[in-house]
């Protein structure tokens, strides 16, 4: 609970920034094409058709002015070398998502992810909106009235697993006319996995067993999201030959089970990889005198590994790369 004051400052800064944005929106006509950095030559110019939750969507030409309402898609767009013109909740995007997928200052904040500001989106005059079914399905019709809208539901079916991640990434790439770039990104990623595997082999860590958790304090007690194989993070680590030991009886749609530290006894022989926020040191001082924590084999044998706090666990290709880098560095020390 030590994070309040810090957060208050962020909040105040946030409000100021937003106030600024609001004013800009009233006075300036949206400027044209300030966003794109890549060469137009490689882009296809004709109509593009993509599949999404609501069926088929055809755009007359690839989209250039994109508004993203969930960070996963924001990151996908950034990975394609495009800055969105609008994104939901820029402030916490910076807190949770790696700065390898950083947003420019030019990106307008359009409000919270759960209730993005429809008017602010309309004012940006986008030519594509990418929405998340979980939060935005009730405003789909309104979004569609503003601009063609792609809606994804990452958590239906098997959840947001690795294949789903690449499917959504490729779909977005098609809509933006960036299919070549997407191929390049994914093949670079595969290359990166191969190199990571070599590094692990060199360190003698191939077929390394792990459990991965994102943990936070819930009412003074540790609450752990343990990622199962239907999550993109576990899928990514499988790609570099690691083996997930968290195998629950029932796979949750979000790709993780939420448990307390008691459940760690089931996987105490595995290796414990964790992500926590800097102001919420779940496994630090609070656990120092905890007999259960100290009694777990991976704690006794010092097999716990911390990753950076901006390792976004529901991300796209960039997050996967950052995760691999973080894990390789942590475990081959």
């Amino acid at each position, binding site marked *: 609970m030590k994070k*309040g004051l810090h*957060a208050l400052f962020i909040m105040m800064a946030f*409000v100021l920034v937003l106030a600024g944005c609001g004013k800009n929106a009233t006075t300036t006509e949206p400027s044209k094409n300030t966003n794109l950095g890549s060469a137009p030559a490689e882009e296809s110019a004709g109509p593009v058709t993509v599949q999404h939750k609501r069926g088929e969507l055809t755009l007359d030409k690839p989209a250039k002015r994109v508004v993203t309402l969930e960070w996963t898609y924001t990151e996908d767009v950034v990975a394609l070398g495009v800055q969105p013109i609008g994104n939901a909740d820029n402030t916490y995007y910076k807190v949770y998502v790696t700065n390898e997928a950083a947003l420019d200052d030019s990106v307008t904040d359009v409000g919270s992810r759960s209730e993005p*500001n*429809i*008017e602010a989106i309309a004012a940006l005059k986008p030519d594509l909106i990418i929405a998340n079914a979980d939060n935005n399905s009730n405003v789909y019709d309104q979004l569609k009235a503003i601009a063609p809208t792609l809606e994804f539901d990452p958590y239906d079916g098997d959840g947001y697993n690795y294949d789903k991640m690449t499917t959504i990434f490729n779909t977005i790439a098609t809509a933006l006319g960036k299919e070549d770039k997407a191929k390049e990104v994914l093949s670079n990623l595969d290359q990166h996995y191969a190199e990571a595997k070599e590094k692990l082999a060199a360190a003698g860590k191939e077929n390394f067993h792990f459990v991965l958790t994102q943990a936070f304090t819930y009412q003074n007690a540790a609450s752990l999201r343990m990622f199962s194989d239907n999550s993109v993070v576990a899928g990514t680590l499988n790609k570099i030959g690691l083996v997930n030991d968290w195998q629950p009886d029932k796979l949750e749609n979000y790709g993780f089970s939420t448990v*307390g*530290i008691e459940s760690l006894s*089931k996987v105490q022989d595995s290796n414990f990889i964790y992500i926590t926020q800097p102001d919420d040191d779940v496994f630090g001082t609070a656990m120092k005198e905890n007999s259960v924590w100290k*009694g777990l084999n991976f704690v006794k044998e010092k097999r716990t590994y911390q990753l950076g706090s901006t390792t976004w666990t529901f991300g796209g290709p960039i997050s996967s790369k950052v995760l691999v880098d973080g894990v390789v560095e942590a475990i081959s020390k």
Partner: protein
Amino acid sequence: MSLTQQETKPAMNWRMISIYGGGLTALIVLFFVSLCYGEAAISLHDVWGALTNRQGTLEHNMVWDLRMPRTVIGILAGGALAVAGALLQTITRNPLAASDTLGINAGAYFVVVLGAILFPSILSQSPFLFAAMGGLVAAFAAYFMGGGRTSTPVRLALSGMIVSMVLGSFTSALHIFFSMETQGLFLWGSGTLVQNDWTGVSYVWPWVTGVTLLALILSKQWDMLELDESTASSLGQKVGLARTSGLIIAVILAAVIVSVIGPIGFVGLVAPHLVRLSGVRSNRLLIPGVFIWGAALLVGADVLAKMIHNSSMELPTGAVMAIIGAPWLIWLVLTRMKAGNGAGMTTSMSTGGRVRRFAFTPIAILFSAITILLLLLSTMFGGMRIPLADLLPSLFQSDGLFSGIVQLRIPRTLVAAGAGAALAISGVLIQMAVRNPLADASIVGVSSGAGLGAMMVFILWPGLPMYVLPVAAIAGAAIAAAVVFSLSWKKGLNPSAVVLLGIAMSAIAGAGIQILIVRGAVYGSSGYIWLTGSTYARTWDQVKVIGIFLLILVPVAWWLARKFELLVFDDNSASGLGVNVRRTRLMAMTVGVLLAAGAVACVGTVGFIGLIAPHMVRLLTGHKLRQSMFLSALAGAMMLVLADTVGRTVMAPTEIPSGILIAIIGTPYFLYLMYRSNWRKAMK
């Protein structure tokens, strides 16, 4: 209540044995069962081994350092809340008093959450001080709003519930604005007993045991409060002292618990009643018995919570406790309350307004003008501001500069106006029917029923199309109200019975909502915002829904108004005037409930408008139902349109849910109103 201690000794002893013996047995059994349940599979044999012969194994450590603290904190919390409840019941001479019904839990919790955001360093050292302060203020507010010493049990329970509602919506506001900071606090504000280690217990136990012992030592002095008022007051100052010490002890106990495990209701209500059933009256015997039963109840609830636990999240113990406790309240009402004609229900419709009465026509014109002005202004402000010069062309032409945006705003504003009006009229009707100025649709369980219905659609069947949502909300509201009405039918729809059953119903539905939120896990946030009342992104679809409700129900209410007006008199005089009181009351409540259900289906559970708008109007003008319906409707529309406009403007592009703004705007007014009504009464 008369003193009945001079009973025959054997009967008394037998009762003592059943209370203490039964309670202790239950507690010991539950204690052991509670140690056996948890996330890891630990065999019975291992649990027993851990208890009798602790080795340093992981299993034994889990039993001792994870499960044991959780169970022990359950015992301490249950006991403390039960003792607090028993004391509050004694000192207010009110069987419905408890730290949750008096708003103490909500007050303490609100201040803890606020403290976590503003003064995290102080809070981590002494959360108790914050909690105690909040609890005390809330208790006083509820007590004085409820009419102080002259209050009836129901009125006190109502004002406590309103204080809880106000503070609850403040707390939700904090949760929404500071979601990243507060998500760690508690499971959406309902208590849970999860413990990492013994720190919680070591913080709580000196307070709980010390203060409970103090209560035992002082117990004799509270016995005189059970005497009737005249005898007690002849004892003079001692009574005041006894009351004050009792209140302070109760608040300390509740605040300590809330600052560690969050607000948990119903323990303080159920446990003392259970023990009192045996006929125990003297506080010296009551307090230990109540402690044991409170502990057993809460540990039992926690065992159930752990059994229902699934791999996605834990069920809050507070929700389980509500599901156990609320039926008890229903049973209490059904068996203990005399069927009847509302005798003894002396609440007055007056809120002391008779200062100045204005003629109806000028006020009606003024209100209409303000409403229209607000509607226009509302289309100017939002995520972007439209200059006045551009507004009119954009409003009336489809190709104006801002036509697109205005098209987004118009339906939203109209929904706000319609829902506000519906809620206000509903408030007028329900206050009239239950003859209590503190009632509105949420009191008879409509809001939580609607919320539960909608949440089910949100979370259990997320694939269903969105238009099912209002249908589900209306169905939920209708079912909740129907249950309340049918249970209280035998009581002649007696206002007190309706209100109490409504509170119980709300608690059950509220617990259901919490269970669904927990099941739906982390990302159901838009559902949560919907529950706090939101005019976000409403379209012509909702305008149609609320329009249909208003077009059908308002004429009905208008037509029946003459009949409804007679409900203001007490039941005997009303039937003397030839009214079938029960049927008329049912009609008024049905129309009120349906209107509120329509509003909830469109904008979520916006509170307070149904409470405040009718008050405001009553203050300005007379009691004529048609007039007050008209003016209240306009007042309600103004309030919600204003809240909608402000909410989408001040923090743009982030939106503030209208329900929260209404609570923030409405609370001071409401407190003022309550203060004033009691102050005037005291002057008379």
